[in-house]
């Protein structure tokens, strides 16, 4: 990738970081929402033994809602503040997408790690294979960031965006969740079964991520350039 592209992408990324640092209310609200979600899920099983199947399912539900709740504002906020047209004039669509997706990836990775740590801490579940858990969470964060950034651009000018975001994004992410649940379950259970299915599911998560990131910028360019 040539240096003008990198300069454009990093400029969009820096703009996102500065906007986030300038207005901390959205980050704070997302953090509180995620913390309360994880606490509620863990509290529902207070005093009971949580199986690895149930735990991984609950963790992925928390991650999914955290991702959709946190990342859909990426483009919605641009439309609300009236800065989207400026961004259109200033930068090429691919650079806007990659800059925004990169920021969403950093935000989602941090959110996923915090949510997972908090969840395992509160439920008392031990992790057997940390590497598998981390690789899966990072890969899933990239796929979530790529998908939800595109969905955010799609719904940015629609009506009832809050409701629409969940309706549109969640079914798209179900295959990712299916693969992620399978990988995290093996990461939790560890040595009782073979690790191979867990690593192959983790590979599936990364393959899904690659496919999303290979196609999403082109779809984004189509809807962003002419709005």
């Amino acid at each position: 990738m040539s240096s003008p592209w990198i300069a454009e992408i990093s400029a969009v990324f820096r703009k996102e970081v500065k906007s986030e640092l300038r207005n901390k209310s959205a980050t704070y609200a997302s953090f509180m929402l995620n913390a309360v979600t994880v606490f509620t899920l863990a509290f529902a099983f207070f005093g009971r033994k949580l199986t690895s199947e149930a735990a991984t399912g609950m963790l992925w539900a928390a991650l999914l809602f955290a991702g959709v709740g946190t990342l859909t504002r990426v483009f919605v906020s641009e439309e609300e503040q009236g800065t989207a047209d400026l961004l259109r004039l200033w930068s090429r669509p691919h650079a806007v997408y990659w800059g925004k997706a990169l920021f969403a990836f950093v935000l989602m990775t941090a959110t996923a790690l915090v949510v997972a740590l908090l969840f395992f801490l509160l439920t008392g579940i031990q992790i057997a294979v940390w590497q598998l858990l981390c690789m899966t969470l990072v890969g899933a964060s990239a796929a979530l960031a790529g998908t939800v950034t595109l969905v955010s651009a799609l719904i940015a000018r629609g009506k009832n965006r809050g409701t629409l975001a969940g309706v549109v994004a969640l079914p798209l992410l179900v295959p990712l969740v299916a693969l992620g649940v399978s990988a995290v379950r093996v990461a939790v259970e560890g040595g009782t079964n073979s690790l191979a299915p867990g690593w192959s599911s983790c590979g599936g998560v990364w393959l899904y991520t690659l496919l999303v990131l290979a196609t999403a910028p082109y779809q984004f360019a189509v809807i962003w350039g002419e709005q």
Partner: protein
Amino acid sequence: MKWVAFLAMAALTVAAFLVPPAKGFPEPDLARIIFFHLPCAFSTVIFVLFAAYCSWRYLATRQMVWDFRAAAASEISCGVGVATMLTGILFSKVQWGDWWSWDPRQTSFLIVLFLLGAYFGIRMHFEDDILRARVAAAYSTLMLLPILFLFFVFPRLPQVLKVSLHPSTTVQTGAFTNDYKAVLVSIFVVLLAMCIWIYKMHVRTSQLEQLLKDRHGNLENYSDGTTAHRVDRNVPVH
């Protein structure tokens, strides 16, 4: 032509009850619902893929007719998809003992219906025709990736095949006689013909609606009826 299709479907429905039942099912006589379940499932796949193709064509050409085609194909796929789900649920109750068995194929099909539901959700949330067409087309091509995964990859994963209740092995190991297969394929062909007929009507209706909308929105260009003429009138200014 449509009457031929209706009569053929009626005749094939009767034939579906006359052919000897297939072996290998817990309730062979009640497994006849497969005659309608499988054609509906195949039609869903065909129309979903066709809708994605039309959406891609819309993005490439920006001609509204491709948006109409994509919307019509999606609606047809949703209709036959719901029929697949309902017949599948009945099959599940009779053959497996539960209305919903969390069978991987059953579950993945439900997710495809959710994706189609989200597509219609998008269409409802945009008032501007061009913007709606563009966003819906982008979403339709975006959902192709999970749909391909759910239709073709997920049900064939070894760990999924192990727990699947779907009678794929029964079907592949010759549970269907030639008569059984002939009725099944005929129902599929007639159903597809009926779906194409409805699809064409839907596209034509959308085109006429668009024409009507254009005429109302551009009265100056409409030469058949009342034309909006320039009116000069004195306006008192105080």
